């Protein structure tokens, strides 16, 4: 977990010339300063818990692992966008609606206008980026809280999704995408698997279970996991290593201070809104190609789950602080608990109770950390 490019080589010199009143504390301090710390502790906790309680239920067999890692990966995709935007000081509540709308932008043209599937997918990404751009533009121009602006988008997009799907297809679930896509590479790109040979080998050597027909219980690593890891890795590198990342921190930390030293705050924020819309579309595409259909209620409440994952991961609601690694941990906690409750057979209602409690604990913890790390004096 190297979310901050701390140069380890420079340490010895600081220890010798550093302030003697602070030097002893610094190691603890540096770890405490990591935004992802709380989420990491949470991950350890849920694994220990379900490792004990759900052991023997198949949760940690190959297909069990696949189920919770897929759920986590889906959330990582949208949480990455949400976390980056939160560090930049804004919210996007339209992520869930965007997922539904983007799915329709893929399915409707393909099924009802017979567009080639590749064109529909490009159209969906283009449309989503345009909507993200609008969200951002309205937010920075009007200086309204993005909470309000994207709350409006939440309703507008959800309404459009339902209205347009009924208008064109007279139903709210548009099926037939799989048939239209055939064996197009985009179908594989969003819903395929990789490493299939490896899993056959693992099954043949009895390392993972085999199905009755001799196939491995897990075909391969689903592309949704690859997307999640890829997007998170790229976002992490951008945030911690690049000038753009520094500008994101600056825009969220104090937009005026950043502007005073020449950071193009508005452009940064608009780009971040476009990125969350992009992430939502990746999520939508993975679902559309997995199920072969788009449904107008897809992505319901995902905006909150994404924000919760980001907050558990250490993002401050006020912006300027947070990490992608933390948000991934947050999403992992989500996936493990959601599926773990299924495996243990506990009533699913407890999942929400747990989530709410987890959110509260995370926010309290983050606030404590922030006070200790930054505002001591």
């Amino acid at each position, binding site marked *: 977990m190297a979310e*901050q*490019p*701390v*140069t380890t*080589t*420079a*340490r010895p010199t*600081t*220890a010798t*010339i*550093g*302030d003697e009143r*602070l*030097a002893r504390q*610094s190691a603890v*301090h*540096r770890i405490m*300063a990591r935004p992802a710390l709380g989420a990491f502790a949470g991950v350890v906790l849920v694994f220990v818990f379900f490792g004990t309680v759900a052991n023997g239920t198949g949760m940690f067999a190959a297909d069990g692992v696949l189920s919770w890692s897929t759920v986590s990966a889906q959330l990582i995709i949208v949480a990455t966008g949400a976390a980056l935007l939160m560090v930049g000081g804004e919210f996007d509540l339209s992520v869930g609606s965007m997922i539904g709308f983007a799915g329709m932008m893929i399915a409707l043209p393909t099924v009802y206008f017979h567009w080639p599937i590749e064109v529909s997918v490009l159209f969906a990404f283009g449309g989503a980026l345009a909507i993200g751009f609008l969200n951002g533009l309205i937010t920075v121009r009007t200086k309204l809280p993005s909470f309000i602006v994207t709350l409006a988008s939440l309703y507008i997009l959800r309404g459009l999704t339902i209205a347009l799907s009924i208008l064109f297809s007279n139903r709210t679930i548009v099926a037939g995408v799989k048939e239209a896509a055939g064996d197009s590479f985009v179908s594989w790109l969003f819903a395929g698997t990789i490493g299939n040979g490896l899993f056959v080998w693992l099954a043949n050597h009895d390392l993972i279970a085999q199905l009755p027909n001799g196939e491995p219980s897990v075909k391969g690593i689903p592309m949704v996991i690859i997307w999640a890891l890829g997007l998170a890795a790229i976002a992490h590198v*951008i945030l911690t*290593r*690049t*000038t*753009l*990342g*520094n*500008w994101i*921190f*600056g825009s969220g*930390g*104090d937009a*005026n*201070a*950043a502007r*005073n*030293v*020449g*950071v193009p705050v508005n452009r940064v924020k608009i780009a971040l809104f476009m990125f969350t819309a992009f992430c939502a579309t990746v999520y939508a595409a993975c679902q559309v190609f997995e199920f072969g259909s788009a449904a107008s209620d897809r992505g319901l409440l995902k905006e909150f789950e994404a924000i919760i994952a980001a907050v558990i991961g250490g993002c*401050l609601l006020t912006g*300027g*602080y947070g990490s992608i690694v933390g948000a991934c941990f947050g999403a992992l906690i989500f996936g493990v608990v959601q599926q773990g409750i299924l495996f243990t057979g506990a009533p699913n209602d407890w999942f929400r109770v747990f989530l709410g409690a987890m959110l509260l604990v995370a926010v309290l913890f983050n606030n404590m950390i*922030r006070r200790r*790390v*930054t*505002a*001591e*004096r």
Partner: protein
Amino acid sequence: MSDVTPTEMPVPAPAPGPGRPLIEVHNLVKHFGPVIALAGVSLTLNSGEVHCLLGDNGAGKSTLIKTLSGVFRPTSGDFVVDGEQVSFASPRNALDRGIATVYQDLAMIPLLSITRNFFMGREPVKRRLGPFSFIDMEHADRIAREEMRNIGINVRDPQQHVGTLSGGERQCVAIARAVHFGAKVLILDEPTSALGVAQTAVVLKFVRQLRQKGLGIIFITHNVRHAYAVGNRFTVLNRGRTLGTFRKAQITLDRLQTMMAGDKELAVLDEELGGTV
């Protein structure tokens, strides 16, 4: 250090001859609709001098410095930088001419590291990959640490949050940053107003150091004592006009204090409170 990028300028060697005029304004007028914020202000800032701008709230100090730093365009009047007539469209223009403004609270982002703050907007770039420029963090850390040591602040780690620095130290980092990126003229907006006694001393000491290096500094304050401790010249503003510019030898602390308050009221109050104001 051979890989230093063009975004990062070395510390400029200011022209040696002290007293060279850096900024001259004549009859500066600024109206906001019907409100006359500046009614013809003239002042000169020389290199190697701290020019204190004094005045009570509403005297026009903020308008004047925001005009000098490119935030506002003057309604009329001459604005000359380095002997050249200028008209700034934005603070960026002023920065390009070496005029940097350090605002009281808007300087530093407490949640970010010293290095990230120091190089915000002007990050040294190691390499580019498509649209992304990677920050040369080691180089940035080294510079930040050196600059901090020059001011006399020992940092354990330049990656520590600015929030862990004291108010005076933060103010000094903001000033050092402006100087590092080539400022010849520093406009310090109430740099000491939020600070305690010891912290104020830290900032004033640093200001005096910079004066000796030949920078021109406009020091805005309504604390006459702070001004008197570092200033060479004092301009008192009242209701959008200057009440005059004075060399340190020409004027006493008390006289400045009285002028600043518009003469009468404070003198009366001062008597009532037994000379403690």
